[in-house]
C-alpha cells in the first residue's frame, strides 16, 4: 500500500518524526503540518533528518502552517514540496491510506 504519513510535531522537542522515519516504508510520502513544518527548514540542527531520507521518501509541507510561523521566506530543504489544504486533500486521495504520527 502506498501510504501518506502526517507529522505535526516539532523535531526538536518530540520523537514523532524520528519514529515516522524509522517505520515508514520506502516509496511512501510524508506531509509535515502544524509544528511539524519546522523539520522542512534547511540549515537547522534537525535538517539532516529529512535530507537523509529524500532519496526513498517524498516530502510535503503545508504552506499555511509555514506562513503562520513566519517561515515562508526561510530556505527549505531541496525537494520538499509545499501544498495548501486542497493539496493535502489531494494527497490523502492519491495515497491508499493515511497514518497520522501523533
Amino acid at each position: 500500500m502506498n501510504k501518506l504519513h502526517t507529522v505535526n510535531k516539532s523535531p526538536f522537542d518530540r520523537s514523532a518524526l524520528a519514529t515516522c522515519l524509522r517505520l515508514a516504508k520506502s516509496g511512501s510520502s510524508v506531509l509535515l503540518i502544524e509544528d511539524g513544518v519546522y523539520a522542512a527548514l534547511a540549515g537547522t540542527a534537525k535538517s539532516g533528518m529529512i535530507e537523509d531520507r529524500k532519496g526513498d521518501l517524498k516530502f510535503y509541507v503545508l504552506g499555511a502552517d509555514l506562513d503562520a510561523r513566519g517561515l515562508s521566506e526561510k530556505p527549505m530543504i531541496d525537494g520538499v514540496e509545499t501544498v495548501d489544504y486542497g493539496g493535502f486533500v489531494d494527497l490523502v486521495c492519491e495515497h491508499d491510506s493515511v497514518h497520522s504520527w501523533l
Partner: protein
Amino acid sequence: MKIGVLVNEGPFTHQASDSAYHFTKAAIEKGHDVMRVFFYYDGVNNANKLSEPQSDDRNLVKMWGELANEHNLDLVVCVAAALRRGIKDEILADGFRISGLGQLIELGMAADRMVVFGD
C-alpha cells in the same frame, strides 16, 4: 471519495481542530463526501456552545456548526469521552450530536480514507 475525519483535541489549546476544519472544508469544496467528523478525547470540547473567544479570534465551535449546517455534515461527539469532560446536551452546540464510539469504527469501515488530527 468518501472521507472520515477524527479530531482528538479541544479548540484553541491545540491546532488539531483548526487543521481538521480547514481540511474538511477543502475536501467538501473539491466535491468529496466527508461522511462524518468524529470528536474523541478532548476533541469533545469542540462542541461546547458556551465557548466565547475574543472578538478578534476565530470561533471554532460556531465554524464547525455552520459547516455542518451548510453541507449537511455529520458531527458526532463520543458520549463516553464527553460525559467525563462535562459535555452534555444542555451545552451541546448547534450542528453536533452525541453518540457512541461504534460510530467511529463504522466510519473507518465505510470511508475510503480516514484522517486523524490530534496531539
